[in-house]
């Protein structure tokens, strides 16, 4: 499907929305208004939960904060609803920033539990503050007005709601396809991966959280001035899970899915209200929530990926149009050959009672390939994690380019010029090859949230794209940049990781068992690639188990066994060292 076709479909959708009030009855329009209002929250959740993997049960509370803020300001203060929007948005985002700041470091389900907690706490507050009318709420809220036109009838506010929804969709879509959006899409790959790319995971999470809250705030404002009445009920915990349901049914991670999900849930709820009384007279009202929850549970059991991704499988792939040629991204100057760039000095790491790395010292010099070898369990991976900042030292020091890495976060070390690969490949399997490699350029580019959402980033994006494509070509994967990374065989996935690392323009490339699981032919190709990188003056630290692979490739070797350094030297010396024979090739039983 070409881009022009997508635009055509989009335009048709907009026209349909525009003529709807002339075709549909007022009841349908009211329903569409609710769908639009809910969709805004669901789009926020699609970004936060679907893309970023942060499950929030508390969005309803954000909707409430803004709705109440605007309602209060425009009734008691007599201010224009537009000031209400400002107050609602600022207040909601401030609360979100505060909550996010204290809770977003929480892991997995702890984070989601905290959203239940503050969601409940905020919702209880609405009902208990006298100035907000306690459980009676606030009535006779003025409508939104443009000059002298007051948006009173549902067909009037309809245009405002859907204009906002369309703008939100466009901005969210642009954002997802920008530098920051790629970082958001990487959050689900885990903090270690994100930070290894030089991305501050916490900052990206916080920003996503505030964006979702902002969308909820706009939704709450629209709700307050459409229904002209607010009470605590629509902002309680039950609604929080309903929003989550909309985002997940539509297809978590899909922007359009937010709208589809909101539409399905709203229409379904309506028809359940209509038809249940026919099936079960009397007790009907309660069956509604039961039926609804049961459907949601069934959905989560059977079809977790949601509707939009399911439908998208049957649609033709969107065509990819590469951006125009652009100026290359700036490069670092590599240090002169032979200069020490990494110095490990008596590094020590304990896990409880076990000493995984015991006073290990070695240096990596510019322009060389250093092999760190040893049998399984020798502490190589731990050493590796100490260098990249994934683990903290228990003692000793590691200095990169003369600066200690001990107090640096992982992403700071990555930004300083250490790029890594992973023993168990960490790629984003649902992203294309080029997008995966583009992730590597993150520290070399600058576009932030707003520039990304407004598409003011085209020039930089084109430069980054050219760089990523060049690196893909350099490792031999340049022919299919739009393939999904998950479809590659393991050998190519490892090479793709190297391309991603190269896109960061590193001073030191650290490879964690790059040959593990590769076939013989693939190993030869990999060795060839590493040699060619060395001839480009790149410094490489290679942690490897496969002796053959290392021997023919590296300049120097450090051998580890039982957490300690056994010896160090050129491959020839190491091969003939009796201690290495004993430790590495196996004790005689």
């Amino acid at each position: 499907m070409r881009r022009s076709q997508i635009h055509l479909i989009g335009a048709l959708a907009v026209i349909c929305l525009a003529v709807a009030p002339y075709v549909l009855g007022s009841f349908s329009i009211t329903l569409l208004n609710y769908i639009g209002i809910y969709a805004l929250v669901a789009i926020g959740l699609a970004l936060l939960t679907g893309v970023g993997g942060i499950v929030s049960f508390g969005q309803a509370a954000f909707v409430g904060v803004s709705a109440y803020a605007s309602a209060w300001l425009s009734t008691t203060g007599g201010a224009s609803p537009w000031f209400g929007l400002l107050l609602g948005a600022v207040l909601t985002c401030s609360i979100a920033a505060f909550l996010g700041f204290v809770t977003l470091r929480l892991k997995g389900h702890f984070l989601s539990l905290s959203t239940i907690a503050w969601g409940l706490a905020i919702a209880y507050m609405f009902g208990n503050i006298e100035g907000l009318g306690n459980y009676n709420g606030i009535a006779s809220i003025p409508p939104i007005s443009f000059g002298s036109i007051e948006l009173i009838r549902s067909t009037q506010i309809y245009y405002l709601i859907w204009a906002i929804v369309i703008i939100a969709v466009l901005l969210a879509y642009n954002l997802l396809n920008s530098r920051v959006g790629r970082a958001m899409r990487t959050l689900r790959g885990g903090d270690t991966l994100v930070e290894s790319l030089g991305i501050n995971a916490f900052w990206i999470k916080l920003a996503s959280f505030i964006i979702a809250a902002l969308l909820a705030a706009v939704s709450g404002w629209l709700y307050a001035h459409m229904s002209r009445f607010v009470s605590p009920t629509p902002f309680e915990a039950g609604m929080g899970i309903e929003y989550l349901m909309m985002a997940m049914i539509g297809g978590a991670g899909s922007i359009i899915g937010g709208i589809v999900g909101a539409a399905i849930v709203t229409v379904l709820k309506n028809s359940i209200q209509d038809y249940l009384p026919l099936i079960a007279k009397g007790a009907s009202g309660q069956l509604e929530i039961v039926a609804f929850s049961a459907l949601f549970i069934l959905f989560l059991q059977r079809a977790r990926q949601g509707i939009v991704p399911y439908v998208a499988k049957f649609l033709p792939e969107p065509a990819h149009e590469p951006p125009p040629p652009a100026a290359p991204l700036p490069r670092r100057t590599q240090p002169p050959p032979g200069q020490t760039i990494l110095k490990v000095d008596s590094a020590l790491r304990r896990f409880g009672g076990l000493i995984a790395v015991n006073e290990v010292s070695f240096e990596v010099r510019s322009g060389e390939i250093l092999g760190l070898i040893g049998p399984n369990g020798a502490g190589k991976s731990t050493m590796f994690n100490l260098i990249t900042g994934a683990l903290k030292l228990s003692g000793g020091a590691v200095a990169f380019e003369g600066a200690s890495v001990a107090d640096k976060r992982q992403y700071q070390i990555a930004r300083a010029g250490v790029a890594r690969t992973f023993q168990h490949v960490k790629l984003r399997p649902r992203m294309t090859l080029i997008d995966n490699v583009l992730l590597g350029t993150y520290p070399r580019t600058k576009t932030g949230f707003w520039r990304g959402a407004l598409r003011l980033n085209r020039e930089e994006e084109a430069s980054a794209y050219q760089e990523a494509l060049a690196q893909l070509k350099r490792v031999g994967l340049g022919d299919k940049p739009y393939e999904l990374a998950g479809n590659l065989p393991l050998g190519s996935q490892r090479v793709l990781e190297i391309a991603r690392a190269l896109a960061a323009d590193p001073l030191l490339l650290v490879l964690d068992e790059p040959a593990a699981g590769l076939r013989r032919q693939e190993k030869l190709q990999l060795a060839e690639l590493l040699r060619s990188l060395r001839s480009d003056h790149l410094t490489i630290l290679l942690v490897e188990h496969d002796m053959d692979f290392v021997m023919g490739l590296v300049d120097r070797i450090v051998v580890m066994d039982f957490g300690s350094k056994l010896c160090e030297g050129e491959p020839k010396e190491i091969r003939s060292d009796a201690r290495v024979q004993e430790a590495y090739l196996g004790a005689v039983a």
Partner: protein
Amino acid sequence: MALLSIENVCVSYDKVEAVHNVSLSIEAGQIVTVIGPNGAGKTTLMMAIIGLLKSKGRMEYLGQDLARLDVESRVGQGLCLVPEKRELFHDMSVYDNLILGSYSREDRSQVPQDLEGVFERFPRLKERRSQMAGTLSGGERQMLALGRALMSRPKLLMLDEPSLGLAPLIVREIFRTIASLRETGVSILLVEQNARAALETADYGYVIETGEIVQSGPANTLIHDEKLIAAYLGGH
């Protein structure tokens, strides 16, 4: 009849095939070893035999099709895996770990006697019987894992890298224990990177590379094989 025989077994993670058309068999009372480099698919194969991973192909154990049995039923039938990660119950005592080893047994009256047997074999465990498993050293953990496995009175004991991360002295002790298990009549499938020690302990060996068996034969033949020596045993 072979105790365990597997034919053309394939195991995949998503789209990547980690084990391809592997066939092997173990007679009762035999020690069979599978050797090969990191990432060759050894652990994957073990996980498939015990049922933790889905596989294609045929697996027969004691004349019955393994595909019909889930992990727990396989354990109940005398299959036992000591995994690479040991999978001990860290916050429980050594004694509790051992008792749990006997969980799937019907003959509860024999359990105290077997416990004594394990303590005799590993006196260190007896000393530390009320200590938490998580506080043990690497070698003691491996002993506990072995002892726990023995508590189930397995017919086929599968050991995944028992020497992993252990000091040479301990490795020797572990292999001595493995060899001594021969007397108890248990069959053993031993997966190792420490090729020399494994081949010296085993009756028969298979070499696996990138998910496929590339060589097999009696252990005392393999140990003198030139190509193998060059690849895994260190040429001297």
